[in-house]
């Protein structure tokens, strides 16, 4: 996994709550057996005026000019901002792959759905929970003064806007380190193979029916 490094970008404001993973990447693109190539179809139904198909070249498709990612000032934004319950619905990790492939490495919201939140950390994407008042202020400032520039510094757990305002955020220490170091967590878990083995031995005695072969 790519390491998460400090960066600055424009915030893309997506002023909705309950943005579900079906909206982030519609189901027809889930037919892919690959782990990348989803960026062109991020928010496909909102971004384009026609119906997207897997494997299609998206360059000539009619764009929805009302959608924020199609505005010149936001199309290169690498920070996405939304409201409550971002990433709800389906567990599809394709939603995070689509954000990552598009270039979005940070999502700001007042809350995230649990599975989406977890999936972010496996793919170098940082989900940041901010209080409603902060999100309100950022949306207002975007609306009143134009696009907001922000620096994301994971190591310091801080977000700094162009006008010098600093927002601190909380993050699980383990998850933070995984992102910063780009760690493969399977390898980490395999370090505990001995503990897993001991657990299995003990459990197989207590609840033998859980160890029957499914064949």
């Amino acid at each position, binding site marked *: 996994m790519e390491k998460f490094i400090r960066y600055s970008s424009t915030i893309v404001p997506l*002023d909705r*709550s309950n943005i579900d993973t*079906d909206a982030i990447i519609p189901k027809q693109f889930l037919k892919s057996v690959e782990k990348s190539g989803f960026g062109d179809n991020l928010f496909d*139904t909102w971004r384009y005026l026609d119906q997207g198909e897997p494997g299609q070249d998206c360059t000539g498709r009619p764009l929805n000019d009302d959608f924020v990612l199609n505005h010149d000032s936001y199309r290169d934004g690498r920070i996405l901002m939304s409201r409550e319950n971002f990433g*709800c619905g389906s*567990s599809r990790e394709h939603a995070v792959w689509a954000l990552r492939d598009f270039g979005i490495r940070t999502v700001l919201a007042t809350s995230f759905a649990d*599975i989406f939140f977890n999936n972010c950390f496996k793919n170098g994407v940082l989900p940041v929970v901010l209080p409603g008042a902060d999100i309100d202020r950022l949306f207002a400032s975007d609306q009143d003064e134009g696009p907001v520039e922000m620096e994301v510094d994971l190591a310091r757990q801080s977000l700094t806007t162009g006008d010098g305002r600093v927002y601190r955020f909380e993050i699980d220490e*383990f998850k933070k380190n995984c992102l910063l170091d780009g760690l493969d967590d*399977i390898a980490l878990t395999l370090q505990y193979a001995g503990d897993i083995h001991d657990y299995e031995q003990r459990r197989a005695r207590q609840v033998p029916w859980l160890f029957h072969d499914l064949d």
Partner: protein
Amino acid sequence: MTETTLYDKLWDAHLVRQSDDGTALIYIDRQLLHEVTSPQAFAGLRENGRRPHRRDTNLAVADHNVPTTNRSAGIADPVSRLQVETLDSNCAEFGITEFAMSDPRQGIVHVVGPEQGITQPGMTIVCGDSHTATHGALGALAFGIGTSEVEHVLATQCLVARKMKNLRVNINGRLPDGVVSKDMILAVIGMIGTSGGTGYALEFAGSAVRDASMEGRLTLCNMAIEAGARVGLIGVDGVTIEYMRGRAYSPQGPEFDQASQAWLELQSDPGAVFDLEYDLDASDLRPQVTWGTSPEMVISIDDVIPDPANAPDKVRSQDWSRALEYMDLIPGAPISSVVLDKVFIGACTNGRIEDLRAAAAVVKGRVVADTVKQALVVPGSGLVKRQAEAEGLDQVFTEAGFEWREPGCSMCLAMNDDCLEPGERCAATSNRNFEGRQGYRGRTHLVSPAMAAAAAIAGHFADPAKL
């Protein structure tokens, strides 16, 4: 000894290792796999030269992409076909048991697991699918995971996790006639919202839950995720034990008795403390219908479409307006006046035998309204289909003008050919009414099987008890 919740007990029994930073390594007893969220996980194993840690505890079944007509012709769409074939070849390569498309036991993974006794009380169960919460109805700790975690479980049989908080929803009282588990869970989501359960394991308790059949309980837990909870749970009781008895992969003979003893311990202690609790009175519930594009946008059959002007706050008011526009509905209109183009009965929410019986009871001796273009019944599994046919339910449906299909996810998410056309409106027994869920620009209303059947007959939403 301190009093603990069912979730606490399941968590403690699966703890392999606790770290100082609050994360834990927990053991996973069972993994269910389907074609959509597993290919990249198998590819990851292959790239790193890893093998499944316990291949014999995984079960794979293709459900999302499979056609529901003319199975013998295979899958027409080459992209869908490749995905299903990829599952077949991955299972062959890694030695994983698969119910292939031609297997009579094939069906939606969350219907197949319980039906086969592959889901058992006291297990930890994961699947790359958010509706894995379903299996919690049997007193198992079951939750959806992403593809990276699918790979992690294949490789290590464990997950790195943090303990969730405990939430309990108590539903007491007797359900009125025509009101079922689907209405209970929709009402719960309406009450606590789609993020009300985020960060929690959600246990359903109370007399209405105890009175529910296992099918009804599976419906409740299925939609815990629509209330934001990754985990749905119901304590083990006699209903659970009887359900488990004699299933293909259930323990047999003396081992069943031994297991049953252990399973009956799987309940929250009477004095256990929950971080959050809600109460719902079942006795005054009415049949529910969603009107918007989020499962929390739900009203009862007697209500009118809500007005964004009355929304609790500005953000919600905007969300409601957007949803009404998408759904093409007018505030103040009675929901019962809303006319349907299609009806879909099926999905892991309501594709079990009891659901088909409930729908058939409404349909019997009646016909689908002329204005309804298509009414589909898609059994949740091959065994549900066979059982329904043995009871003559397929006849009831087809005589009324319904189409009787092969098992799969079908029009729940329309990855196969079953879908809504742009602008079409559907009464569906599935669990998600998101924009485009059942087809590009399609409009979905979530209802119970009886309500879906009533809507097919009337051509608009109608109280099944008053049809």
